[in-house]
């Protein structure tokens, strides 16, 4: 990164960090800039990475074989008709195809890719007794008690009460671990910005000043 770009990036970094002191116009400016850029970024990307190569170039290369891609283009344009009052119902047709496809994929993905393998891996040998079999038992007990905790169709009374309480304990360990990992993630981002400020901005600037 050249020094001018580094100064621009450093200015924007500090503008965002100024929020830590208090909300201010500089932060609001940076925030607005971010909103516009993120939306603008996607326009060029979807056009040049998907719409042109996967629709237009394929159609141009072999229209006889790839004619069906037109349907994708038409459905895509129909999505925007939701903003045109008189024909907004056509937007719903396109959205219905879009959602129908992804929920169909999701249905099999979740049942076949999540539920079955996870249940299978929970049904592991508990005998002969060993460290591994004790851990298998703990996982089995943990999974069942967590599922009981999230089972709201019956009140948690009788046997369900202590089991769901056990489920909470497992969830608490899990959330504690997740908190630890979240801290790690957020600090990593801070490390990234500080490393940028020190290595790409302060040091090159000092080097330029001191020759």
């Amino acid at each position, binding site marked *: 990164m050249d020094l001018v770009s580094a100064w621009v990036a450093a200015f924007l970094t500090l503008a965002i960090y100024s929020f*830590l002191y208090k909300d201010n116009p500089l932060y609001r400016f940076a925030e607005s800039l971010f909103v516009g850029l993120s939306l603008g970024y996607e326009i060029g*990307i979807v056009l040049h*990475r998907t719409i042109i190569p996967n629709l237009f170039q394929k159609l141009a290369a072999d229209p006889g074989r790839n004619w069906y891609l037109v349907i994708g283009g038409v459905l895509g344009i129909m999505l925007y008709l939701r903003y045109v009052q008189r024909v907004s119902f056509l937007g719903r047709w396109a959205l219905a195809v879009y959602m129908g496809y992804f929920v169909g994929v999701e249905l099999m993905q979740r049942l076949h*890719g*999540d539920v079955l393998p996870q249940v299978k891996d929970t049904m592991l040998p508990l005998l002969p007794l060993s460290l591994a079999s004790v851990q298998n038992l703990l996982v089995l007990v943990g999974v069942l008690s967590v599922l009981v905790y999230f089972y709201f169709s019956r009140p948690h009374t009788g046997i369900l009460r202590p089991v769901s309480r056990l489920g909470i304990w497992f969830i608490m360990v899990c959330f504690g671990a997740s908190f630890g990992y979240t801290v790690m993630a957020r600090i*990593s981002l801070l490390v990234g910005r500080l490393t940028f400020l020190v290595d790409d901005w302060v040091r090159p600037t000092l080097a330029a000043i001191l020759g």
Partner: protein
Amino acid sequence: MSDAQQVGGIDRRWVYLLVAVGALLPVLIPMGLPILTTPAVEALFQRVESFGPQDVLMLSFDYGPSSAPELDPMADAILRHCFTRGVRVVVLALFPLGGPNMAQGSLDRVTGEFSVEEGRDFVYLGYKDGAQAVMRRMAEDISAAFPRDHRGIPLKEIPLMQEVRGYPQIGVAVSLATGILGEYWANLVNAQFGQTVAVGATAVSAPKYYTYLKAGQMIGLLGGLKGAAEYEELLASAYPELRDRARVARRGMDVQSIVHLIIIVFILLGNVFYVLSRSERTRAGGRLGPR
């Protein structure tokens, strides 16, 4: 000063300042603390280690700049590992907000260090919309999802892609992921197409991947900056010539150490204040309450 801006009676900006100083010091003065490696990271490293020039690794950039400090070092380390061993790499991006730039950035940083040729040793397919649709379509025919690479060259004209038609020719697919995209590689690509998968996840989502790892739906897991630092450590131990290059994440772990300690101190202090205020309330209640 409103209550919300106070932490235990002090302005929370002092807390912010303490975190900033704690994070800045190790950036300025690296401590070089040792990195312990874990089986989840070793598993992916060993898999790549078992590969040679006949093998192909798929590297999917499923993240943007908000996760770059955690995932960029993983990407760079994996690419360096592959190029050192002559393993060929198929790079793609499925995350819309920055994925393509993350992939290009990593390739720009790493390819210059090796005598590798685009199209023969690695190919960058670019970005594609519709994550699950792309993953499904690539199974048998990558060129149906990515008709051209990022330079606009048709895939059938690229030597590497003449050998790699779909998942069957990929040794391992590694997704560096933020959000849910990494899960798709396990519960869709691995589950439905039997593709060997590993995930480099942001630390926020890393805990949930343990269940996929244990169920054999993934062969390796790199969790956050720690995972990246472990991969760098393994790489530096196996290939000492890479030690100076593979150190971004390891350096970051010094900062993690200090700030984690600061946060643990905050947790303990929070409890001390809590116990003190409770006993004060109890004493006040004792004086004021009925006899």
